[in-house]
């Protein structure tokens, strides 16, 4: 399913003294199968953009197209369930949304709201709990007796069980231990490939953005500052550093090597293997350094 945002503006609490412009003139294309990473400082409007992706909020200007559904500021939308079923959002700290008596019931909650039979929902719950790396025994526990990391995984499983075509992740690994982060990111990456999903990831980790995403958008003060492939974005890191954002370690290292060698590499490398290879080429090439 394709999603397009065209010149979207959103004001929180429009027409009150608390009115606040959160994003403006945001245009993002998300053809089916894309892995997009959204990067930017806290308050730059990332979460606000995400909420447009399944029509949780209506733009105050501009157009949002989600599959066949078009959302504009003044149109009243009746039933958006079909949109919500196909676009799953994992909110920041999704463990706050758990409420059922058992983990199983909580995971089944989403699918059953969209009309999936109880039996099928339970089967999905079993699959989802394995996907997020937990054992099936947990299904019968209360979500409130789990550890923070387990709760996070259960909440993610609850969204996976809806089997969406587009999965939207708002800092899904914030506050997890490094191991847990990696597990979860790898899980999303393999899911993205196996199910041919579109994935939108908000992250503060440049490493994750460069490793998993095929498109990166940089948000700054409510606007999309730059868009491009990871190689394009990280090929000139000055701008990123100006905005106070980091670049991946590899890119940093490449820049240090380049200034040490006094010459540019042929391309921007996004993995250590790549960089090693490029460096070797340069050294073996025997061109006078």
């Amino acid at each position, binding site marked *: 399913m394709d999603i397009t945002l065209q010149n979207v503006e959103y004001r*929180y*609490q429009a*027409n*009150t*003294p*608390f009115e606040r412009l959160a994003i403006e003139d945001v245009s993002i294309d998300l053809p089916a199968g894309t892995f997009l990473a959204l990067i930017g400082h806290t308050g730059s409007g990332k979460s606000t953009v995400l*909420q447009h992706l*399944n029509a*949780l909020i209506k733009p105050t200007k501009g157009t949002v197209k989600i599959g066949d559904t078009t959302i504009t500021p003044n149109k009243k939308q009746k039933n958006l*369930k079909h949109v*919500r*079923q196909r676009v*799953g*959002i994992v*909110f920041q700290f*999704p463990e*706050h*949304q*758990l*409420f059922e008596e058992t983990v199983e019931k909580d995971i089944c*909650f*989403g699918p059953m*709201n*969209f009309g999936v039979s109880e039996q099928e929902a339970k089967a999905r719950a079993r699959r989802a709990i394995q996907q997020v790396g937990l054992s099936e025994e947990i299904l019968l526990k209360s979500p*409130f007796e789990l550890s923070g990391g387990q709760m996070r995984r259960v909440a993610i499983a*609850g*969204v996976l069980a*809806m089997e969406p075509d587009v999965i939207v992740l708002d800092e899904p690994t914030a506050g997890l231990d490094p191991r847990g982060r990696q597990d979860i990111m790898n899980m999303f990456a393999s899911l993205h490939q196996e199910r041919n999903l579109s994935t939108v990831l908000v992250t503060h980790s440049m490493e994750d953005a460069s490793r998993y995403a095929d498109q990166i958008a940089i948000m700054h003060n409510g606007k999309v500052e730059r868009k491009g492939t990871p190689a394009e974005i990280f090929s000139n890191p000055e701008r990123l550093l100006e905005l106070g954002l980091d670049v991946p370690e590899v890119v940093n290292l490449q820049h240090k090597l380049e200034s040490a060698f006094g010459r540019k590499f042929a391309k921007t490398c996004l993995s250590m293997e790549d960089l090693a290879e490029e460096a070797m080429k340069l050294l073996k090439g025997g061109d006078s350094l």
Partner: protein
Amino acid sequence: MMEKMIFGRYVPAQSIIHRMDPRSKLILIFLFVCVVFIANNVYTYAALIIYTFAMILLSKVPVRFIIAGLKPVFLLVIFTLILHLFLTREGAIIFELGPITIYEEGLRQGIFISLRFFLLILMTSILTLTTTPIEITDGLETLLGPLKKVKFPVHELALMMSISLRFIPTLMGETDKIMKAQTARGVDFSGGPIKERVKAVIPLLIPLFVSSFKRAEELATAMEARGYRGGEGRTKYRQLSWRITDTMMLLLLAALSVILILLRT
């Protein structure tokens, strides 16, 4: 989704009302509640309305915002009006249709009482919109100070109040977040039959309770860690200062009461 609520919210601005001492505002509200009951005819109510709207204008809070925020209250006001219309059976009959009879006195009382109710809510809204919870608490604590002598837990009461007021916006933000999260999981909060809507409340309320309890516990720990042990021996950082405007405002209210007493029938 709950963006228009105005209870417990503070609208920062530079106005006479904002700058008033919280003590004088509290006294003013308390007296206003009494003064409202003097009114008993069209002229006195007109005077009250003028006074209240003058206060709103002075506070520089946009009228449109207050009106939008009070929408849920309008329902209550209208309900009061209807109750009086149908239940009072005095005076001349002014309307009759089948089993419905409306008496003149019912109409009069209905309008007056709901108006009184409405003005009280407006005035208290001005108080909370122009005074930070901290100020309200400070003011209240000082005003009730003498009661400490009779072992009345003034400090605890003030603290409880300030905590509740402080957490109203937090709770509303949380409600909004959880509503969005559950909407994304297919809950429909806005439409559908009553039964469905009641059911939709559970996935909202349980997470709210859980997080409120957690927050209360964290707050208690944080307060203890910073050495809080109740009001005993606690010094004050913010000093209240009574200015000439505060006295003027009270005099203005006194003038209003005199006018009301003169106009009253």
